[in-house]
């Protein structure tokens, strides 16, 4: 039995695991991607390009204006003007190729010192790689309105020159880092709103200038790049990605279905095993009961044979009585064996073939006579009412087996009533046999079950009365196979079994 429960628990556990796994599988994390709008990206790129070139041309314009001022003989406030332009560290005036006035911004403490500006061949620079070296005779050939650029070796400073008047050149000393930072800051401010709008529209965008971030953040998926005259800028864009937790009910319902099927199969197996286990227990119990039932007549036969043999010579009449008892027990044994065999075969097989012409009263009285001494020993008074039906065509074997079982039950279970009534009657084309007793009776809750095989009114061994639990079951099947019935009637203070067998019209 333990194994059966183990199987049930195992399948229930498996179905719980399936449910849990289903729950885990049904929960999914989904990444939603909002693609970058390519048009938006193009617009941003164009915007960045225009802002950068606008700023640059504004700056060039400012430098040119200052150069016009510086070319005047009484030029003043040049220092203040150039200091207002970020990245400008100095201005040098050249007239007819010769250096003239110069305005150098030393800068605050801690800032980079301005680079040296020297004319090639005139003076050797202190730090060659830092110096802006003006090629000899460059400004002599310059015409009005021209401009140009001179880089130092380390590219930290460069010179940008402009000719405001014929024969005059103003060279600005520019610090690349400061200038770029200022440009980026200005451009960044100008494009910030556009980038924010783009972010609201779903794209993450970033703009770079010469590899440095102008606006935005993150890693790009799409990128638009462009070159300006003195730098490279890029606008990069990302698809917006959002992670969402989703619950997949299809998977969950699948798991629930599977769990229910597994649990159902487990329960089904459990109940079928339980039924088989009960059936096998009933069989074992039946074998035990049969062996017990065999024990009693065999014991009586052994004892009576021993007593008969002891008194055979001295008291032959006593020996005779003992042998009669042995015969009585052989008959009991025979009936028991018949019951077991009838149960093993299918009761009623070929029952019609065994119809014989006989007097039912004689058949029943014959059975009653077999029990007479046993009933007397238990002080059971017998009341016999014959039906006087005359000869009938019936199955006398089945009739006698049924009546034998009914009387045997009275002997075994109802001896306390000390009364047995067997009555036969005829009516409506049927033979009616009633076996009544006044024993302890059958409790109402067991009445429906008494005709089931292996069922006894009391199954407890403590009750102490033996029996195979087959008699009533076999008797009813025999009665039904003859087209009749065997039923337990309701009667106060009495147990009445009624057998009805339809009579053949001859």
């Amino acid at each position, binding site marked *: 039995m333990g194994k059966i429960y183990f199987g049930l628990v195992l399948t229930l556990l498996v179905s719980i695991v399936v449910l849990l796994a289903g729950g885990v599988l049904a929960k999914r994390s989904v990444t939603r991607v909002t693609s970058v709008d390519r048009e938006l990206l193009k617009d941003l790129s164009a915007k960045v390009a225009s802002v950068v070139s606008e700023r640059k041309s504004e700056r060039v314009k400012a430098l040119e204006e200052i150069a016009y001022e510086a070319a005047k003989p009484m030029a003043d406030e040049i220092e203040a003007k150039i200091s207002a332009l970020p990245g400008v560290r100095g201005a040098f005036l050249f007239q007819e190729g010769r250096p003239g006035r110069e305005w150098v911004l030393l800068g605050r403490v801690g800032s980079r010192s301005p680079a040296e500006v020297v004319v090639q061949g005139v003076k050797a620079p202190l730090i060659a790689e830092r110096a802006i070296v003006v090629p000899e005779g460059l400004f002599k050939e310059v015409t009005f309105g021209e401009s140009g650029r001179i880089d130092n070796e380390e590219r930290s400073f460069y010179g940008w020159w402009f000719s405001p008047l014929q024969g005059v050149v103003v060279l600005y000393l520019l610090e690349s880092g400061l200038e770029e930072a200022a440009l980026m800051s200005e451009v960044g401010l100008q494009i910030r709103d556009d980038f924010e709008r783009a972010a609201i529209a779903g794209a993450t965008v970033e703009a770079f200038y010469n590899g440095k971030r102008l606006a935005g953040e993150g890693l790009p998926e799409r990128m638009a790049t462009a070159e300006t005259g003195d730098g490279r800028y890029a606008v990069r864009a990302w698809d917006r990605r959002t992670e969402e937790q989703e619950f997949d009910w299809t998977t969950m319902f699948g798991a629930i279905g599977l769990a229910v099927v597994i649990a159902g199969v487990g329960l089904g197996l459990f109940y079928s095993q339980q039924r088989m286990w009960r059936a096998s227990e009933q069989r074992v119990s039946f074998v*035990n009961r049969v*062996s*017990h*039932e*065999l*024990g*009693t007549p*065999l*014991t*009586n*036969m*052994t*004892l*009576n044979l*021993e*007593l008969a043999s*002891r*008194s055979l*010579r*001295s*008291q032959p009449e006593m020996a005779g009585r*003992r042998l009669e*008892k042995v015969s*009585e*027990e052989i008959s009991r044994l025979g009936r028991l064996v018949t019951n077991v065999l009838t149960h093993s075969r299918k009761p009623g097989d070929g029952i019609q073939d065994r119809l014989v012409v006989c007097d039912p009263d004689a058949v029943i009285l014959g059975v009653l006579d077999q029990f007479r001494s*046993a009933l007397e*020993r*238990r002080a059971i008074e017998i009341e016999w009412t014959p039906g006087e039906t005359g000869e009938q065509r019936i199955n006398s074997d089945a009739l006698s087996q049924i009546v034998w079982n009914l009387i045997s039950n009275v002997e075994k279970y109802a*001896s*306390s009533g000390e009364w047995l009534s067997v009555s036969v009657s005829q009516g409506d084309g049927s033979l009616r046999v009633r076996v009544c007793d006044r024993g302890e009776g059958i409790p109402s809750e067991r009445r429906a079950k008494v005709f089931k095989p292996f069922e006894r009114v009391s199954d407890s*061994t*403590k*009750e*102490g*009365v*033996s029996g195979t639990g087959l008699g009533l079951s076999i008797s009813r099947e025999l009665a039904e196979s003859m087209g009749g019935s065997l039923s337990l009637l309701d009667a106060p203070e009495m147990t009445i079994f009624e057998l009805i067998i339809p009579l053949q019209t001859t």
Partner: protein
Amino acid sequence: MKILVTEDEPMTLEALGELLRMEGFDVVEASGGEMALKLWEEVHPDLVCLDIMMPGMDGYEVCRRLREKDSRTPILFLSAKNEEKDIVAGLELGADDFIRKPFSTGEVMARIKSVIRRAYPEKGSRKIQMADVVVWPDELRAEQNGLGIELTLREVKMLLLLEEKKGLPVSRDEFLDRCWGMDYFPDSRTLDQHVHMLRKKIEGGSELIETVRGVGYRFRG
């Protein structure tokens, strides 16, 4: 020696009672558990034989109740319940032996005698020498030339009566009165049958137990 036999099957009760009486025991019969307890109080038997499956109070319950009052009197189960668990249950309740039905009469007698020997060892010390036969009356056995002889209680009673008379003849009536009891009415042939059995058991029995014509028998020691 009184034996209380409890059995709900009337035929078994009657036949077993008769067999035990034939063996020389005094038998009290009870047809159910309650009756057995009542009779036990009245007669205080030397041994109790109990069936298990009986209506009302079953044999196990009777055994349990008897053991509460008396731990000495041997109890023997005679039952058609023959599974190991039934036997174990019976012995655990304090029974001295368990005999399965159907049993042979020889087995029942041998087991009853064995249980009596074990339960009453103090009675086993008595020993009587009759010619070359040594009789242990309480153990229901004898020995002759190193060979054991199983005796019934009746046979022991007969031998004791012959010994008591020291070679004088014992009349048939005296045999029947002393060995069968006043309430029991066997006829003369029953006595002859028993003498015949006794003579068969003892070597040279016909010479040792001599027929005295018109009187009865005597022992020639």
